[in-house]
């Protein structure tokens, strides 16, 4: 039943009622909230698989999973976390909610396309889940040929799922870029846009230009499975390395699709809780774009031991070092923003500082892996696993959680409990680092990834890591429960609880149906804390 109350000045949660009113909505805020709920649900699912296979790794012997189930579980963990959680993650959930609010628009440029991309996400997600009952997908999230050419129905459904999810991602990115170009409120110049939006813009460029290459790769893999066309099949004269090149041409930029939005969240939170203009705004803005561009030129560093020419290896290695420059600019600028700021250690800020710590480790271990001679030793070890978890989980998910806490009052109209929020953030920090730091150690000692069995000397490392996962899980659930409880018992949120300067904090809490009762006139930059003091 849809009961239309349709008052433009009623908050978006109450503007219309009933389950159907959410399913047919074109409101970017509701779509963002539905994305948020879906992504968190899959985060729990993907996390559960990780939790289970980490328990299995408690000893080198069988605990409760067979080797085939172990392969299936790490595949499901990877596919769910990459394609359903971190890639859509911050842009689809927070970006959808915030892009129009931060530029002073009524909605995204293409509201119907926006709800379409959510439905594509749901269809892709259902197909990915269906692959669990269709059989045991064991090809890993990288879907390399020939693992993915087994005609295993579970693998096939996963390929179709990733193909559909790719379209969802392209449409979201496209919508954001068009909106930022054409829908900005009067006075909202490019350099008055919050850095979150610059980050989403850079991300959208990568979504639009890299994802289609994944789409064609998946299409070719499907053709390979159904018709044996042979392009990736060495038995027919094809080239499996071409598949890896195509795959990483998408999946390396995808790493930046995953982490660049986190940079955006960090910029917002650090500025708001330091009560200070971001140090070097333009450098932070352009470094996102620089990372997006360089990110297209480094895919070969995933293939140093795959049989590339030495010349190609050297060029990819050099370009990979180059990505450190814009990343370091960001880290230094955030740190400089903290310097002499009036720092307030609220829950979002604690997560943002964690992000800064974890991202520094994630970034620097990336530099270590970019060194050709070292990579030959570290390739396919736990060192690599830990490196990308420091980026995808320690940086992106932590920043995502920071963003959820930061914008929660605006999105839901409720304040959460600060004590439990902070406690959860400490547990997440400890749990995450206990889980993954030890993996850097065991990886550097040569322990290979994705193995069901391991040498007894690595048992202590595995056990530390497994204990870390338990702490991490407790922290994450505590954070989630704290947020959910606030929906019932939280104090009503004021319009601007953190005293931030970006435009979304001038909208009602929660925002009205078309965001602003009248089109805002923008007269200052996103972090104009100084002007107020003067």
């Amino acid at each position: 039943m849809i009961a239309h109350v349709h008052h433009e000045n009623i908050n978006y949660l109450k503007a219309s009622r009933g389950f159907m009113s959410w399913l047919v909505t074109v409101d970017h805020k509701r779509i963002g909230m539905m994305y948020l709920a879906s992504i968190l649900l899959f985060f729990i699912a993907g996390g559960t698989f990780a939790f289970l296979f980490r328990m299995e790794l408690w000893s080198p012997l069988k605990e409760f999973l067979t080797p085939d189930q172990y392969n299936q579980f790490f595949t499901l963990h990877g596919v769910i976390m990459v394609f359903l959680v971190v890639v859509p993650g911050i842009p689809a959930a927070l970006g959808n909610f915030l892009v129009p609010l931060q530029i002073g628009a009524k909605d995204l440029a293409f509201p119907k396309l926006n709800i379409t991309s959510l439905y594509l996400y749901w269809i892709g997600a259902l197909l990915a889940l269906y692959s669990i009952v269709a059989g045991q997908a064991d090809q890993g999230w990288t879907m390399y040929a020939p693992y993915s050419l087994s005609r295993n129905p579970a693998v096939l459904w996963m390929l179709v799922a990733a193909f559909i999810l790719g379209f969802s991602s392209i449409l979201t990115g496209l919508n954001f870029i068009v909106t930022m170009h054409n829908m900005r409120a009067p006075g909202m110049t490019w350099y008055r846009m919050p850095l979150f939006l610059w980050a989403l813009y850079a991300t959208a460029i990568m979504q639009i230009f890299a994802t289609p290459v994944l789409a064609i790769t998946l299409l070719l893999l499907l053709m390979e499975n159904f018709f044996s066309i042979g392009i990736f099949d060495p038995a027919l004269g094809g080239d499996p390395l071409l598949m890896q090149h195509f795959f990483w041409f998408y999946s390396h930029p995808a790493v930046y699709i995953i982490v660049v939005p986190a940079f955006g969240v960090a910029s917002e939170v650090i500025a708001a809780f330091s009560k200070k203009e971001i140090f070097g705004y333009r450098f932070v803005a352009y470094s996102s774009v620089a990372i997006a561009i360089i990110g297209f030129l480094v895919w070969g560093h995933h293939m140093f031991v795959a049989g590339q020419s030495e010349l190609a290896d050297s060029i990819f290695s050099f370009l990979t070092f180059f990505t450190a420059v814009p990343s370091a600019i960001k880290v230094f600028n955030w740190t400089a923003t903290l310097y002499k700021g009036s720092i307030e250690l609220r829950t979002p800020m604690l997560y943002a500082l964690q992000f800064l710590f974890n991202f520094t480790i994630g970034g620097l271990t990336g530099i270590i892996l970019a060194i050709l001679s070292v990579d030959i030793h570290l390739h396919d070890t736990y060192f690599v696993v830990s490196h990308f978890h420091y980026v995808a989980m320690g940086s992106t998910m932590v920043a995502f959680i920071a963003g959820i806490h930061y914008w929660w009052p605006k999105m839901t109209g409720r304040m959460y409990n600060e004590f439990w929020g902070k406690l959860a953030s400490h547990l997440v920090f400890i749990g995450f680092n206990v889980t993954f730091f030890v993996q850097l150690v065991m990886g550097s000692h040569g322990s290979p990834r994705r193995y069901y069995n391991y040498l007894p000397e690595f048992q202590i490392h595995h056990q530390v890591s497994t204990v870390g996962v338990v702490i991490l899980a407790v922290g994450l659930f505590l954070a989630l429960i704290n947020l959910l409880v606030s929906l019932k018992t939280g104090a009503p949120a004021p319009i601007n609880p953190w005293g931030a300067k970006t435009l979304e904090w001038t909208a009602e809490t929660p925002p009205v149906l078309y965001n602003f009762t009248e089109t805002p006139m923008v007269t200052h930059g996103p972090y104009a804390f100084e002007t107020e003091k003067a």
Partner: protein
Amino acid sequence: MATATSGLPEHHVAHHFDSAEQEFDSAKTGMWLFLASEIMMFGALFVGAFIFLSMNPESFREGSRHLDWRMGAINTFFLLTSGLTMGLAVAAAQAGQQAKVRLNLILSLAMAAGFLVVKSIEYASKFEHGTLPGKLWAAEGFTQPLVHLFYSFYFVMTGLHGIHVLIGMGLMVFCLIRSTQVKFARNYFTPLEMTALYWALVDLVWVFLFPLLYLIG
């Protein structure tokens, strides 16, 4: 339809836009970005085809010699001419000439259909001779070892392009229906402009496919 052209209702700007201009600009930016993603998708296939061509030039040339370049040339003519009529349809829409819009759309549709007819004649002959992709290969009398991979690229690339032709035809039909519902004018011709842009991509891909597949022999 009894509705006289002049009696058609004017287009209304969607609620979240301030002006027709903003709405049109948004549609246009979005379409260009979408076309960019399409080019990346076809681009990967072209890169793959070029790599295999440079590694197995003799196999690919032998494969190409068994395609009929005259068929390809006729199809090139069909697509380029339909590109012209789509452009004329946009110009007619800007001038508010609904009848001319429809005429040009129908001409474009006819040529697109002609393209598909020629393409299916070609496909039928491939099936007859067994020059099919990868493991399906059943042809005899070829001297080079990897001709089947040439046909893998041939079928994947022309197949994907053919799907785009069909989608383009769908858009043209949509524009035809739209031309009976709403008045095209200088301030509103968005569906035609978008269809013409999309059709230009279909043309562009073919302009590169034709020499790559038919003319390397």
